[in-house]
């Protein structure tokens, strides 16, 4: 079953490529539907009977490749498929038949999803490297799909950032293999102790730095806004919602797995990600408040929201921090996808992408604006949204460990998010100048964005199940 989560997207992507330009939509839909079902059954299985394992082709770990799904991976798989399916419906309406930006959208998305699913199921460090590269190359292809000079520039910048990131990660893997002679995460976890040689510390540092570059954690965020802000809306949604989360998932997995005894030994190290996360929240929000273009505003908001994910690292010693982080990943994933989808519909309708040009959309496109507002509620962390649940839990944990500074950062970050969300809403409620023309957009664009935004709110009511799933190790 786990194998099909990787093979299905590979299959439909290859067929979509063979069918030719812009085709293969229905194949992709069928594949995505099956993937969602597979991810859901896998999650159910993990909750019912613990960690699931599969040896590819019947060859076990030392010679072959093992696929492992615990609560964390099952949750991330579920998030990915939950976002991909509505996004596919959206993209079908978004790309017109002869739109050059949509030419290779379906094959690239398929390869991207195959890389993502393989990454979440991988159980050894080298396999993770290969999936990281698959993911990175497919994502760069999607960013470049528009074909304009600006998109190509953003894609190249993204490509070099992601290559340096995975290069540093690979060097770390090489050093680890040199020290222990294995790359399996389960074998390494008991081997790496607090007395590990300096080489292992350097390896860990290289891998973490490489992955942080790929997650666009401040100050490595420079590549994200042009790449996510310049791509077509469905691509931006996919990249912001799930692709950056993949490298965050790896940081988390290594941090609580193989490197856990190192991080316990050096208690100050846990504050570094939290410090960078704090700076990301402030810098990203500041840039989002200043941004003139709508999609740049949303992209900088991603930089800020990623910061929250790194606030959990000083708190990981106590139960619940992991759940808070994954809840934030879900909340931001769904909300940010909805926001980019709504922005795509607004840009199509108004024919331009400045925040200042949004006047009048409240009247003409209420559903889209409502979707944007709902997603904004999740980003701000107002109840009953999933964002509220994540931030509440983060604050509660921080206060119980007397780290009031983290609670303070979470609260201020929520206020800053309110500033940039209301900046857009305020503009949207102004009266349109009489001369403005709005092209009608397909209903599907508005309603899929709305469904996604509603999901980010409603998840707050089903948080218990998700937390239970993440708890399975």
């Amino acid at each position: 079953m786990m194998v099909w989560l990787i093979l299905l997207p590979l299959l439909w992507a290859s067929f979509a490529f063979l069918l030719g330009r812009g085709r293969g939509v229905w194949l992709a839909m069928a594949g995505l539907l099956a993937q969602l079902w597979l991810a859901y059954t896998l999650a159910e299985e993990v909750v019912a009977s613990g960690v699931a394992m599969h040896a590819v082709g019947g060859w076990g770990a030392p010679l072959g490749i093992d696929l492992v799904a615990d609560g964390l991976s099952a949750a991330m798989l579920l998030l990915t498929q939950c976002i991909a399916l509505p996004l596919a419906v959206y993209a079908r309406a978004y790309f017109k038949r002869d739109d050059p930006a949509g030419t290779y959208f379906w094959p690239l998305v398929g390869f991207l999803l195959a890389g993502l699913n393989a990454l979440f199921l991988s159980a050894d460090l080298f396999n993770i490297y290969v999936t990281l590269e698959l993911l990175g190359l497919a994502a760069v292809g999607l960013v470049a799909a528009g074909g304009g000079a600006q998109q190509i520039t953003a894609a190249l910048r993204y490509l070099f950032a992601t290559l340096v990131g995975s290069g540093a990660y690979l060097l770390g893997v090489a050093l680890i293999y040199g020290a222990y002679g294995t790359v399996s995460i389960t074998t390494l976890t008991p081997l790496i102790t607090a007395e590990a040689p300096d080489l292992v510390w350097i390896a860990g540092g290289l891998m973490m730095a490489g992955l942080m570059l790929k997650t666009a954690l401040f100050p490595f965020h420079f590549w994200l806004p042009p790449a996510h802000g310049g791509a077509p809306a469905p691509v931006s949604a996919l990249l912001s919602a799930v692709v950056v989360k993949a490298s965050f998932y790896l940081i988390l997995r290594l941090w609580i797995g193989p490197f856990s005894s190192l991080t316990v030994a050096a208690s100050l190290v846990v504050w570094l990600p939290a410090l960078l996360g704090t700076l990301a929240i402030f810098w990203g929000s500041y840039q989002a408040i200043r941004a003139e273009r709508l999609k740049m505003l949303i992209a900088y908001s991603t930089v800020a929201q990623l910061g929250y994910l790194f606030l959990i690292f000083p708190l990981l010693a106590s139960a619940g921090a992991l759940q808070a982080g994954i809840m934030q990943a879900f909340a931001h994933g769904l909300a940010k996808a909805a926001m980019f989808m709504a922005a795509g519909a607004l840009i199509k309708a108004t024919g331009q992408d400045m925040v200042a040009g949004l006047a009048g959309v409240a009247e003409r496109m209420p559903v889209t604006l409502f979707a944007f507002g709902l997603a904004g509620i999740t980003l701000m962390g107002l109840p009953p949204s999933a964002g509220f649940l994540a931030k509440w839990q983060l604050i509660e944990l921080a206060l119980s460990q007397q780290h009031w500074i983290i609670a303070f950062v979470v609260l201020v970050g929520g206020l800053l998010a309110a500033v940039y969300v209301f900046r857009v809403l305020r503009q949207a409620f102004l009266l349109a100048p009489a001369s403005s023309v709005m092209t009608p957009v397909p209903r599907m664009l508005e309603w899929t964005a709305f469904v996604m935004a509603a999901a980010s709110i409603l998840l707050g009511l089903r948080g218990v199940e998700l937390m239970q799933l993440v708890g399975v190790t």
Partner: protein
Amino acid sequence: MSAGLLFASVGVILFALGAAGVLLIGHLLRRILAFNVMGSGAFLVLVGLAQRNGIADPVPQAMVLTGIVVAVAATALALALVRRLYALTGKIELPQDDEG
């Protein structure tokens, strides 16, 4: 110093040189070459460090083969993008600042 350690040290130096190149060089073609130097450095560390008593370990060799395939794919994609950029702008450099 054993042969394996020598390989690994050279690998680290190559990696550092390549990484500096990717980060600092403006000319995109040279930057792509620098990325390949960086990758080769990592491969050399992988193969060099893993030797035990002068006997080569086959597992990292298989890994390096996979890694080379990935590097070739990445290089091809980078070259295709640079060609496209050259066709559009006539330059083989990234513009200084395109944010905003």
